[in-house]
């Protein structure tokens, strides 16, 4: 967040250089399973895909999303990692 200014919904305009490298600055919330998310969910898109889809999914919706990534998008994620990932996403980026 150093070069950028958080969007305030106002007309004020903050400019940074290029966006391409900026995704490194995405910080996921701490918690068990974060490591597995960072290892398995960055291949095809930046991790803000997770942030923006929060917090409104219940556990079964996050499970369905992770299943979609595995079964439809082809994400190579082990069953053990998938369990940890769904728990993490539900706790940190979901709703009860």
């Amino acid at each position, binding site marked *: 967040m150093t070069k950028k200014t958080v969007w305030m919904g106002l007309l004020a305009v*903050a400019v940074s250089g*290029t966006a391409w490298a900026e995704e490194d600055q995405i910080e996921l919330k701490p918690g068990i399973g974060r490591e597995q998310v960072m290892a398995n969910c960055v291949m095809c898109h930046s991790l803000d895909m997770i942030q923006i*889809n929060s917090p409104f999914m219940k556990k079964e919706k996050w499970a369905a999303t992770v299943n979609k990534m595995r079964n439809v998008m082809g994400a190579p994620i082990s069953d053990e990692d998938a369990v940890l990932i769904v728990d993490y996403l539900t706790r940190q980026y979901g709703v009860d």
Partner: protein
Amino acid sequence: MLTRRKFLKGAADLLLVGAGASLVPRWVAATELPAGTIAASLLESLPGKRPLIKRTYRPINYETPIEYFSSVITPNDAFFVRWHLSQIPEIEDRAWRLDIGGEGVRQGMTLTLDQLKYEFEAAEITAVCQCAGNRRGLSNPHVPGVQWEKGAMGNAVWKGVRLKDVLARIGLDAKTVEIEFNGADTPAYEKTPDFVKSLPLDKALHEDTLIAYEMNGAPLPHLNGGPVRMVVPGWAATYWVKKVVSIAALTRPAKSFWMSPAYRIPRDMFPGVRFTSQEKEGDATTPVTELVVNTLIVNLKDGQKLARGETVTAQGIAWDSGNGIARVEVSQDGGRQWQLAQLGTDHGRYSFRQWTFAWKPEAAGTHSLSVRATNNAGHTQPLEPQFNPAGYHNNAVQRITVEVV
């Protein structure tokens, strides 16, 4: 931002109990982006672009801030950017090739950009390019996907050649049912479905469907699909395949994840034409096709302070799938009574149509302005979004709340 909006809603609820009850409609729905979307939003410049609102870095998904819709044509450097797959090659004009083939043609052909430009008649059209999921972020309840607010759209003058002219040169087999388009973008991982879309034959052969190489008088920008993209006026942007490099005539309906189950709506929920060759028995969905009628207020914001007794002119745009806008109306009482807004110049049936509404708030307090458009087919906008699982076609009446002091 969230707290400010929350506060506004609280204020509105209070008014319902008090004397100002008539000013605030009862259908105040949850029309906020998810909190996580708001927190992750930044204004940021991509190469060749003015600052746009970042939704995701990769694939590049950035939306246009509403201010830019105060001009009827959306500037190229402010036009939204939407990709599904992250590998997006920059293709030089002289390296670009378009392969045309498929089972429905006897012999395929390959065109260079110069051939496309100089061997076919040029055509130009002003048309709205809007993501089917524009305003998904305002779905109630929220649904997963890129959480667009209101700027996953733009209006531009597109120049290219007619797809039907190009297909006429090779001739189509009578058994052709759909025309399929593939762009040069590829997934980061080989198992992810490639982004391939198809159109029914009648829409593909429509004289307004273009293979375009210019946008607003300039070469089509890389991030908006340059050097060449499809332009499918009236239909959702999912069919406007960017960086198109192959076109195939299909004698059987296309099978691709991006045609089914993605980009589907319940069959009878919206007035757009049904894409019947893509419908399946035992599944009540049809692909998203034509845009729904919609409007946007561009110069007033929720929570804005206005002076009592001073005339303000609300400005906005309205658009639909090409029937054309018949009227735009504004309501100050949450949708009971409506007054006509003034329509601006007609730039063609697929274009944004500007409108204005002069308004003099006489009383201090919280006021709401709601706006709706009706098209020449008699379709208008619902007060609440019509819920569907992927949040497409959100054209709920926009209502803003202003403070008159």
